[in-house]
């Protein structure tokens, strides 16, 4: 327990510092403008809306849709290559350590209200939703659904993303009179989504990450093949279930260390009373498993 208390703030600190660093254009929060300098052509690995007045970099999901929804759509080699590189290196560790919206959801979950337990079957089905969101709203709709002038939209950002509503919608509408006047039913819809997401985050651990986030879905595809892996020492593991109980993403790390749902927060590693779990490079992890099998 003492170990957990010592480690816990480390991840929160990293998440907080990263969140502040990528939203370091503080003047934007005073003037209601956004940063438009050269850094904006680079993507961050986690979700962070580029309409946020503080955002210094681009959101990869928004950037991907920008490529797909262009009047002459381009395959998003740059963004997909960047995300593939990050994904194959660390998998969903980005979700656990470098996502500001993940941190916000975690903090909301600490509010002492009764927590909701989703039935296992429903939870399993709902987890596939994020892959549907990725394929339809981020890739297919921006490419296919166009108006008579050939113009398309970033459909995920427009209809589903609560990050943009929180980081961009609220501060900009508060600070900019013109935007305030232009806000109508779509703004109300996004505020409703945000309110639902906030309410759900108080009773369910990271509901957006579990069920909706297309970036988490993309990184999840690389969990099995990423260089960074969760290592299980079967000789030490007694299958006591401590790691599964500690995991708030409802993964059983001892049985499924490469699960696409694991955000590699390290809670299981700290919870294991036998030190049977650790993070390591893929080759070492495989080596350990093979050694134990023989």
């Amino acid at each position, binding site marked *: 327990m003492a170990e957990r208390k010592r480690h816990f703030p480390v991840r929160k600190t990293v998440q907080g510092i990263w969140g502040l660093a990528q939203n370091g254009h503080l003047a934007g929060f005073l003037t209601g403008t956004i940063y438009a300098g050269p850094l904006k052509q680079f993507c961050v690995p986690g979700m962070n809306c*580029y309409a946020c007045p503080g955002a210094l970099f681009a959101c990869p999901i928004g950037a991907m849709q920008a490529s797909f929804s262009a009047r002459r759509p381009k395959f998003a080699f740059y963004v*997909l290559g960047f995300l593939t590189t990050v994904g*194959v290196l660390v998998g969903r560790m980005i979700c656990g350590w470098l996502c500001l919206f993940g941190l916000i959801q975690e903090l909301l979950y600490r509010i002492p209200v009764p927590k909701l337990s989703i039935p296992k079957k429903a939870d399993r089905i709902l987890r596939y939703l994020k892959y549907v969101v990725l394929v339809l709203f981020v890739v297919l709709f921006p490419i296919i659904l166009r108006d008579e002038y050939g113009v398309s939209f970033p459909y995920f950002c427009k209809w589903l993303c609560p990050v943009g509503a929180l980081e961009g*919608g609220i501060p900009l509408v508060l600070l900019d009179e013109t935007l305030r006047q232009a*806000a109508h039913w779509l703004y109300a819809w996004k505020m409703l989504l945000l309110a639902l997401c906030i309410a759900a985050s108080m009773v369910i651990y990271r509901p957006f990450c579990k069920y909706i986030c297309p970036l988490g879905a993309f990184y999840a595809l690389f969990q099995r093949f990423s260089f960074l892996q969760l290592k299980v020492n079967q000789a030490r593991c007694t299958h006591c279930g401590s790691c599964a109980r500690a995991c708030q993403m409802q993964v059983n790390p001892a049985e499924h260390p490469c699960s696409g749902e694991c955000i590699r927060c390290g809670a299981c590693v700290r919870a294991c009373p036998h030190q049977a779990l650790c993070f390591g490079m893929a080759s070492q992890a495989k080596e350990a498993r093979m050694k134990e099998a023989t």
Partner: protein
Amino acid sequence: MLRNKENRIRLLVLLAGIGMCAYGIARGEMLIVLRKAAAICLECCGIG
């Protein structure tokens, strides 16, 4: 043997990722990202 194969796949995916990124940059995709990100995204805010 299996380990080598898996590591080779990992390395190939990593190289493919870096290659795609470099190719995207070479054909000017960063400009598309910059154009989108440097203006207020009305869709993201819920305005348009």
